């Protein structure tokens, strides 16, 4: 393992631009400092190191943002991103919840990644990503600051996702003119992708429509060790060991990775056959060690007769969508745009 370290580093650096490598490597380093072997997490240091940005009513590149505390009891906060309009280039506080203008206005509820433990809605990397989504989808984006593991295990993140979903669905100012309904898409990367799936399932159960799911490198897993996990362990920023740590931190104590939260189509999972599950766009990075689980997820959707488009980005690593300096990034953004606009 020690000898192969050098090979790993070099391989890794072949496939990403230097600044991406520096970014993701420093995250990896920081995250290694935060996870303790006993399963606890150095939350203070995590918050200290995380680069955060405030919301901003002043439009930047045509997008402004503001935060809303939607549940005082749990402190659940969402950051809302809206396109600035020609009529109101400098929105003030009364413009914030002004009704959206348009026959069809997509509203994307976004769940940030971080393996259920890291990051926040106001993390710079996710603020940047959400702003992009506004632009490419001509959408309102609602980024959910869900409670994180290990302090808050399953099902807290899903509950927060559901609370945010209901809140969004009940905002009259988010309704599209066409049918006076909120046109909701669920999106997320890593653990956020996992949350998006589960919130969609719950929405469907409650009879509320979700127009589509966008899962970027979604975090799924299972007890079995798959081929991709063995082959790619430690090679591209991520180790199996850290994946295991995060699942142990999120899942209820005593549960293993075949828990349906982790493995929705696994031995304890449930088929979606006969259920009106939304169409999905699933992006899988070819150098992500958990890809076999992501591909199994896609297969699970297909087998249940659900519409799913798989984007397999062969030479992509985790986090490729954080910086717009590679072709995978642009390809995926185009696909997301297409996925959302095809309903408009």
């Amino acid at each position, binding site marked *: *393992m*020690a000898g192969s*370290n*050098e090979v790993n*580093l*070099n391989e890794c*650096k*072949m*496939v990403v*631009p*230097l*600044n991406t490598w*520096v*970014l993701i*490597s*420093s995250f990896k*380093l920081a995250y*290694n*400092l*935060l*996870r*303790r*072997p006993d399963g606890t997490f*150095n939350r*203070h*240091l995590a*918050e*200290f*190191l995380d*680069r*955060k940005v*405030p*919301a*901003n*009513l*002043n439009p930047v590149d045509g997008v402004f943002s*503001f*935060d*809303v*505390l939607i549940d*005082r009891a749990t*402190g659940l*906060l969402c*950051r809302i991103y809206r396109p600035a309009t020609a009529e109101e280039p400098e929105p*003030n*506080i*009364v413009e*914030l*919840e002004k009704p959206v203008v348009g026959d069809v206005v997509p509203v994307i509820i976004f769940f940030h990644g971080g393996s259920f433990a890291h990051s926040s*809605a*106001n993390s*710079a*990397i996710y603020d*940047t990503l959400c702003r992009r989504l506004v632009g490419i989808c001509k959408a309102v984006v609602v980024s959910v600051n869900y409670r994180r593991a290990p302090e808050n295990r399953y099902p807290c993140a899903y509950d927060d996702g559901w609370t945010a979903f209901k809140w969004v669905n009940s905002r009259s100012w988010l309704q599209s003119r066409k049918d006076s309904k909120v046109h909701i898409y669920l999106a997320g990367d890593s653990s956020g992708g996992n949350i998006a799936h589960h919130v969609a399932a719950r929405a469907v159960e409650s009879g509320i429509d979700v127009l589509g799911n966008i899962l970027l490198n979604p975090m799924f897993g299972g007890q079995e060790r798959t081929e991709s996990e063995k082959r790619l362990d430690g090679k591209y920023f991520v180790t199996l060991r850290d994946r295991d740590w995060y699942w142990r931190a999120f899942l209820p104590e005593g549960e293993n990775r075949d828990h349906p939260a982790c493995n929705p189509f696994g031995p304890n999972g449930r088929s979606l056959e006969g259920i009106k599950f939304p169409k999905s766009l699933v992006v899988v990075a070819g150098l992500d060690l958990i890809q076999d689980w992501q591909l199994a997820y896609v297969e699970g959707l297909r087998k249940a007769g659900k519409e799913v488009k798989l984007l397999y980005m062969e*030479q992509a690593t985790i986090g490729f969508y954080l*910086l*717009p*300096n*590679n*072709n995978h990034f642009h390809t995926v953004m185009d696909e997301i745009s297409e996925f959302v606009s095809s309903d408009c």
Partner: protein
Amino acid sequence: MKRDHQEISGSGSNPAESSSIKGKLWEEDPDAGGMDDELLAVLGYKVRSSDMADVAQKLEMLEKVMGTAQEDGISQLGDTVHFNPSDLSGWVQNLLIEFNGSTTTPDPNFNDDSEYDLRAIPGVAAYPPVKSDPGLENTRKRAKTESSSSSSSTTTRPVVLIDSQETGVRLVHTLMACAEAVQQDNLKLADALVKHIGLLASSQTGAMRKVATYFAEALARRIYRIFPPDSLDPSYNDKLQMHFYETCPYLKFAHFTANQAILEAFSMANRVHVIDFGLKQGMQWPALMQALALRPGGPPAFRLTGIGPPQPDDTDALQQVGWKLAELAERIGIEFEFRGFVANSLADLEPEMLDIRPPEIEVVAVNAVFELHPLLARPGGIEKVVSSIKAMKPKIVTVVEQEANHNGPVFLDRFTEALHYYSTLFDSLEGSGVAPPSQDLAMSELYLGRQICNVVACEGMDRVERHEPLTQWRTRMETAGFSPVHLGSNAYKQASMLLSLFASGDGYRVEENNGCLMLGWHTRPLIATSAWRLAGTESGSELTQELS
């Protein structure tokens, strides 16, 4: 080293797809040079393009060194004190030094020896009433001049909405419309609107109602030109501030974080001198004194110079505080000296009056908690004070200010900013767990209400609540010849822990910002603590060996 790096990259087989992009990025761009990488800058990391390969290399080295420690995990490195994570290069460098130094026992220099007993932070009970001796040092000068407000603008307007109720929005809308009418000098309309606000506010509840009421009153004063009386009894304001101190953690945070920086700056000194630009009730100092008393190796001799405004009834408020602190000092075994200075304005201070002793003998800290922004009300005020500070040759200057933009040239903008700011602040008081109508809460609100009144109703020299955001204070300090002293992860951690001790309701958040710490309510920063040293001197409190 860089050459090796490029050889490795060149010889690899690149997937056809992205090779053109990668190739370009891997070459050293001769123009990039001293510029920060733009893409990383957006994400909060400042790395010069020309340093990128070097940072990468250091990361690789760390990876190799840490690889062998993987079995035990490297989370013990989490005890290391981290500084300024935005400076990736510095951060990685420090970790390398730390890791090479020792693997299991953290270097004692970076232990929490600046940590002190959080219980030392006093409540009201700290000060039983005490008799005092008269004897003041007096400087009375009053200079009336007009001033123009500073006009540099920030680019962020952060807003956290708490209430999405129908009436809340209408209320805000009306407040804004009224402010706009005032700005346009349409006083008839403004008058009508201000009355309407009263009606709307009465149907609201909680924080929004209170905030609206204060803003409406301030607008009314501005419209009818019934300005608040000039300088109110400062002891009354001090009392209000005490209640504010008790009700919510903002002042405690301010004192705590400033004290962290001061303690670190004092760490090797035998004689120390704190110059407090606004002594008030001296709430900041017992905790510092306790910490100094507990210092391994024994406490330094502690001298405190407290500055305060003249009292209308001629009582020597400063000496009273001095006496209480002297009593404390005796109890805990610290050599203590106190001097009070009365001044209408900090700009009236001359450093020669303060009996500054040479730096080899005594280490000086200058402390300004919410004391600098009023100086912006008179031309030359801040410049004079900053140059006075420099003449005091401090090892450290601690500055705490409201993180708000209440000093722009346009009234409506100031109004809007203040509305957001105080709404958030009032909301945090609602959530602070203080049971319904308490004396403390009401007084705290009054304390804030007076600030609102000043921001909205006053102008010229009377408008002293000229809050400006950290970015502007930074520019000002750096231009004046100060360099930042970074507050690190230990200060951050303890400030966070302080919050959970004192604040019920966990909406309070500490954020690190380029070496400064900010306390906010949820995602909205509300106050910021920064620390400074004279450029060209060493602070002695940081890992980085950087000397300007």
